């Protein structure tokens, strides 16, 4: 068995183990499952089957081990005084501001504080506050309107991350200075994954129309970014420089945008793609996906079970990689059609079919209009991102130039918002 196959099976069975543990399966069922998958599905030899079953057991064990180490120590439902460090950029929404705090001793764990809209708090500040912790329906520790909130220290976060967050905010401010609020919110979502200013109605419209994945920074946007960056750099300098610069920029971008699972996944995949290209090795999506998932699960084994974003992100990707070629053959696409609508429709369909089970079990509904809305929007996303990006950059040069470019971006943004809202109406 070649090394890359070994790596693939090892990662896969380890992930299966953590997932089984996360979903509270009995260890015996998990091991039996691993045996069957290995023997029947992959037809591996008995020796390998045994080895990979043990790997599955390791994964199972790893999650429980992680749980014990990371158990929250937080009193629930009673008033208490807490101290902690702000570990994410406060998210200034329209009705409230959300502050993510990692608690200090004697407590342990993270809480989300909800405060009135507008805030002066910043990433990396140490604060103390009073309140009673409750668990939200999503399983997060939450304190609404904490009392006696005081800043007691600053600069406790990573300085690189702090600087990147600062950069992101400057870029967003440039968009906000020339675009109407709703357009600016969408442009910030597309370019930088900033979702704080999506109104509740807009978030719902995106869900109903099945467009959340394209308009809120995801693998799709990162892929566009990777291609654009390496394209520009190889045009400016040579491929070697382009390669090393991209290696730096992608992780920076992931951190800057808040490192959501879908963005991390896309970032890592992008890096692997770059590496494979640079080393002139064939890019194996199978290994890239599994190794990316393994890396993320090693960092936080709970992510595979608790984070719907993680599940959706991988499912959609699997759909596009494995289902799309099948459908393409089946429907025998010769030309791509006006604005590549056939290709986009099939890709959207592949992703939708793959995420369907997760969507149904998590949200309990599925957007039947997703296909149409995706076809109508997808083709315009890269050009919108490009125009919005030029708008921000011009913002540093001249307000009026940026305003004109913003005006042009607004046409596309307005169109996309219209489609999202139109297909986001309750149709059924």
């Amino acid at each position, binding site marked *: 068995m070649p090394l890359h196959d070994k790596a693939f099976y090892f990662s896969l069975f380890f992930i299966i183990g953590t997932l089984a543990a996360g979903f509270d399966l009995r260890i015996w069922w998990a091991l039996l499952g691993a045996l069957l998958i290995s023997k029947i599905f992959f037809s591996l030899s008995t020796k390998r089957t045994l080895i990979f079953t043990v790997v599955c057991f390791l994964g199972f064990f790893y999650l429980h081990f992680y749980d014990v180490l990371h158990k929250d120590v937080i009193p629930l439902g009673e008033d208490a005084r807490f101290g902690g460090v702000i570990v994410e950029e406060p998210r200034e929404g*329209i009705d409230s501001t959300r502050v993510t705090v990692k608690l200090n001793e004697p407590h342990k764990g993270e809480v989300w504080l909800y405060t*009135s*809209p507008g805030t002066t708090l910043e990433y990396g500040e140490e604060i103390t506050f009073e309140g009673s912790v409750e668990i939200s329906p999503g399983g997060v520790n939450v304190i609404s309107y904490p009392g006696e909130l005081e800043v007691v220290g600053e600069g406790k976060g990573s300085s690189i991350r702090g600087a990147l967050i600062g950069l992101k905010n400057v870029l967003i401010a440039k968009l906000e200075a020339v675009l109407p609020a709703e357009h*600016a919110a969408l442009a910030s979502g597309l370019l930088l994954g900033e979702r704080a*200013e999506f109104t509740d109605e807009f978030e719902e419209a995106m869900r109903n129309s099945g467009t959340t994945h394209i308009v809120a920074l995801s693998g799709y946007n990162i892929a566009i970014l990777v291609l654009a960056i390496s394209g520009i750099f190889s045009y400016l300098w040579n491929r070697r420089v382009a390669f090393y610069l991209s290696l730096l920029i992608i992780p920076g971008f992931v951190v800057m945008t808040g490192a959501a699972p879908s963005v991390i996944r896309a970032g890592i995949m992008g890096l692997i793609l770059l590496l494979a290209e640079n080393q002139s090795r064939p890019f194996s999506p199978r290994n890239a996906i599994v190794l990316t998932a393994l890396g993320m699960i090693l960092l936080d084994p709970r992510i595979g079970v608790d984070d719907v974003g993680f599940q959706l992100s991988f499912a959609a990707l699997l759909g596009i990689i494995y289902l799309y070629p099948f459908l393409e053959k089946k429907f025998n696409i010769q030309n791509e059609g006006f604005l*590549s609508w056939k290709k986009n429709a099939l890709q959207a369909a592949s992703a939708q079919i793959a995420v369907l089970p997760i969507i149904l079990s998590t949200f309990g509904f599925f957007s039947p209009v997703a296909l149409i809305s995706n076809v109508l929007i997808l083709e315009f996303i890269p050009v919108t991102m490009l125009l919005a990006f030029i708008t921000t950059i011009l913002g540093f040069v001249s307000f009026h130039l940026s305003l004109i470019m913003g005006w042009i971006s607004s046409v596309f943004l307005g169109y996309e918002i219209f489609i999202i809202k139109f297909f986001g109406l309750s149709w059924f």
Partner: protein
Amino acid sequence: MKFLSLSFLALVGFNVIVWQGVIERNTKDPLAVHFLDVGQGDSELIVFPDGVKVLIDGGPSKEILFELGEVLSPTDRYIDLVMITHPQLDHYGGIKDVIERYQIGAFIFNGEEGAGDAWDEFKKELREREIPIIVLGEGDKIKYGDREINILSPTVELLAHRDLNEGSLVAELVGDGIKALFTGDIGLTAEAVLLEKYDMDIDVLKVAHHGSRYSTGMDFLDETTPLISVIGVGENNFGHPTEATLQRLSRLGSTTYRTDENGRVSLIIEDGKVGVKTKMGN
């Protein structure tokens, strides 16, 4: 093929915006007063026929930005005057976001400083952006062509009142054959002072203090007799707008709109006639 079809669409798009701009410029829009839906709070935007804009209050949060984004054309990033009636968060909270994103000619308030970090931060932002700050009070007047905004309150005594609300700037818009009164959060005390000093007959009333029972008294309504009343209100725990105030308004026969039910309420004013557009049903 792909490039062609994209450029074709882009060209169609450009045409639409260019012509839209031309058409908009040729028609002279009438005087408009928009009561913006900003949740529990007040915000009114007066747009004069040649585009001069006066924003009175900004609601509690960023919500105002979405309203402005819909009312103003996409390239319009300038507001001539921004006024807050009094320094409370449900009136100036959103203004902080407005000054971050729009260019402002001047900022107007009643001279009374607000309390807390949020106000200090707000003033700091004004200074950093070098926005001129103007203090107005009773007797002051903003004149633009043959239209006027008269400041009727606060008097020195009202400004010193322990209740911040009574010290609200009260502005009367006079022009195009109508009078509209913007009352901030004044209560019965300030209303009595106004009745004593001025002829208060008006056509449009921004109902004071989100429809609180301690404002908009029967005496005040009997004198002002507004044909149209608008209440800026959202979800709240104060019981706003109160049944008492709503009943007083309906007894007077004033057509009453509220931003929590009607959404944004826009009045289009021409030669003494007022057309009303609401964002949501009537």
